């Protein structure tokens, strides 16, 4: 909303030109186009399969999308929201690296008092023995890192659920 208004305001301004010096060329400029690009998959030819998560930009959170990370830090009068955010971002990067190419969708992190529950949707790319090992490895390492019980609940899907094609 604010971005659209800024764009309209800037477009109302005349073109910004460098004053023409004698025996020099002038620059042709276009008005700056401010487009929010955060967490948006741009519309393409119609061959890009996107999941529900990717198809909805962030302004649909709390309207069509839920939250990927649930904890009490963001409630009124509660502390340590920043620490939870840092932990979340680390856990997501860690999982992205531990299960290369196997994550069908974003991990959902739920905190229940001290424990961290990681809900994963995995593709069936790895043999179960390797998958089991990686899940155990991730649980143990994260528990030791954060000094709290970490449990991973994994579900495997044949393919990532396609919501629409952009």
């Amino acid at each position, binding site marked *: 909303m604010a971005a659209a208004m800024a764009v309209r305001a800037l477009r109302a301004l005349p073109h910004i030109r460098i004053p023409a010096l004698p025996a020099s060329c002038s620059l042709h400029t276009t008005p700056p186009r401010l487009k929010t690009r955060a967490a948006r998959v741009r519309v393409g030819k119609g061959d890009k399969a996107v*999941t*529900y*998560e990717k198809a*909805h930009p962030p302004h*649909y959170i709390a309207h*069509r999308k*839920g*939250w*990927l990370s*649930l*904890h*009490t*830090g963001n409630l009124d*009068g*509660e*502390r*340590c929201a920043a*620490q*939870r955010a840092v932990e979340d971002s680390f856990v997501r990067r860690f999982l992205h690296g531990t299960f290369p190419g196997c994550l*069908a*969708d*974003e991990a*959902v992190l*739920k*905190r*229940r*008092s*001290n424990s961290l*529950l990681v*809900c994963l*949707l995995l593709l*069936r*790319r790895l*043999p*179960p*023995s390797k*998958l*089991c*090992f990686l*899940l*155990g490895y991730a*649980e*143990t390492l994260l*528990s030791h890192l*954060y*000094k*709290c019980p970490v*449990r*991973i*609940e*994994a*579900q*495997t*899907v*044949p*393919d*990532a*659920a396609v*919501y*629409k094609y952009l």
Partner: protein
Amino acid sequence: MFQFEKQAVAENMMSAEIYYQQVVTSSWGSLNTSDEISGIHTVSTRRRGRMSQLIRSHIPPRTERMAVDQDWSSVYPTAAAFKPASVPLPIRMGYPVKGGVPPPKEGNLELIKIPNFLHLTPPAIKKHCAALRDFCTEWPSALDGDEKCEQHFPVEIETVDYVSAGTSIRNPKARIVTLRVKLSNLNLDDHAKKKLIKLVGKRYCKDTDVLTIITDRCPLRRQNYDYGIHLLTVLYHESWKTEAWESEKTEEDMEEYIWENSSSQKNALDTLLQIKATENVSNVTKEELLASEVVRNYRNSVIALKNEGETESNMSQYKESVKKLLNIQALP
């Protein structure tokens, strides 16, 4: 920590079994296969250590083998994420595409994001209550009403414990202790009560006769509790003492209006004496006047006006008493 059935997996790698079947039947129940095509069992092949040789076994989800009268509390014994293969409900969640329907439950992240209460069905809660009953004790039968509780335990202590999701259990708000006591339960005489009310100021509520002491100046709850009890003790003992300077209490310091030795008494008596003098009645003493009923009435009405404020009944009572005092019958 996870329970890892090494034996089962080792067997799996050696023998020609279907991998995902083994995973489902292993003791690690958290790994679920979400299946759309049911009933297709591919032929097993020996693992050659390459991704392309992996078989994709399509085992029907557990929901198809669930009886209608199964014990649901064994499917969801504790709080867990939504598992589409374990919940036999045709749930759809999400905003539908144009001309379409909301996405199905398989691989649906929205259903996993939300907290669910599948582990808290009424039969499950009944089981919890039955298990907890062994740890509960009966309420003492002697305390069967609020008045009895107040009579035996006049001092109420209120503390708050805070639970939040995170690795830290500390919350600075947890050290605050609130102490509540009714002054009628304390052994105070008139002077002590007035002095105590003056000492505590805003902490006393006149409507409910409750003294509230909130302590948070110490870092620990126990210390704040001790300080609160100490304050109550000190207030009680100090209010019973009478200091030398308390005799200098002036009319402005009085909590309620006292008619004796006030300007109203003086004025009324002077007026009555003057009236008596003009009527040439024999000298009546002040005590006689004070004891007379008209003056008593006037005194009561003035006290009521000053202490309770101006109400219809108070004003009319004052009017009647003044009329009687000055003996004016004619005016309405």
